[in-house]
């Protein structure tokens, strides 16, 4: 296992207790039930450079182990085992099952997914470091959703021709912001997610 770890103990967190749990039933022939636990993660700025970022709201740690990541060295020398994001694998498996849906798969006239739509969904999920909860719609689109502890919500409805983004700050739907984009969908979603979690 690589030794490029930055560990910090006693991180100060501010979290409100919030949970939203949704279940998606009958995905695909297997009918597996997957629980999507929406994000309640407190905003944590990740030290992408490998340095402990002093502006973060960390309480004084009792112990810090710091190893310089050396950006140039990066992970060139890491010839290690394959890394698997289990949520990504799970999302990709769900999308593959969705690809086998036939018309009226949901009993209310839901259309089968086009090959182009499925390929787009796969491409986007592959790009995302932070995986969303996903759910199919009956209109050849995929819902992707993130939620924070403070009830802030970030959701996308991705279809072949357009993607609609909705951002709800702190559960206040009257302040909801909507955006529509048709190009560079994957990058736009990735950027939105990174901003949402404060990674940038």
């Amino acid at each position, binding site marked *: *296992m*690589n030794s*490029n*770890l*930055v*560990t*910090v*103990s006693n*991180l100060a*967190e*501010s*979290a409100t*207790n*919030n*949970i*939203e*749990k949704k279940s998606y039933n009958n995905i695909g022939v297997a009918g*597996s*039930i*997957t*629980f999507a*636990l*929406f*994000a*309640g*993660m*407190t905003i*944590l700025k*990740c*030290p*992408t450079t490998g340095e402990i970022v002093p502006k973060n709201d960390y309480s004084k740690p009792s112990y810090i182990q710091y190893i310089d990541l050396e950006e140039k060295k*990066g*992970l*060139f020398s*890491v*010839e*290690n*085992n*394959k*890394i*698997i*994001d*289990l*949520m990504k*694998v*799970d999302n990709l*498996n769900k999308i593959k099952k969705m690809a086998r849906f036939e018309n009226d798969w949901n009993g209310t006239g839901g259309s089968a997914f086009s090959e182009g739509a499925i390929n787009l969904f796969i491409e986007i999920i592959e790009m995302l*470091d*932070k*995986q969303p909860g996903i759910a199919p719609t009956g209109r050849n689109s995929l819902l992707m959703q993130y*939620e924070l*502890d403070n009830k802030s919500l970030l959701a996308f409805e991705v279809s072949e021709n357009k993607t609609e983004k909705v951002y709800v700050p702190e559960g206040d739907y009257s302040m909801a912001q909507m955006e529509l984009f048709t190009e560079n969908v994957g990058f736009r979603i990735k950027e939105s997610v990174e901003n949402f979690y404060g990674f940038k």
Partner: protein
Amino acid sequence: MARMSNFIYCINAEKVSANNGQFGGVNAIGVLSALTPEFVPGTFSFSIIFSILDIDISGNNTIQVVFLEQGEEKVLVDSGIITIPPITDAIDIGLPDEYKGVDMSMDLRNVIFETEGLYNTKVYFNGNLLAENPIYVKGKR
């Protein structure tokens, strides 16, 4: 025979792209020796990282992660059975078979903790319980 290695609880498992574009990595951000939500009862989000070695990655494998209070039957998180497809593009540097495998990460978001105490992550590989990794949960206030 499959075995677990490097099990870590952390605040976030950061996926990192490799400079050469071939191998990525995962960084453990904020390693946790205990889970400390603000309040119990309350919710807490965290991630786990672990490795499974001495396995055949050229075929289908399944994994299931279950998180529950130790000694209790009620499951707080169940990933369900996740099928890991064959991995054919792994670079082989000639590691002994018992040290070949996969590194995995998973986010557990908004887990509800009703009581303080010892909790457990159980990892099942191909239907068999591979390992249990306990951690203590204590509210900050």
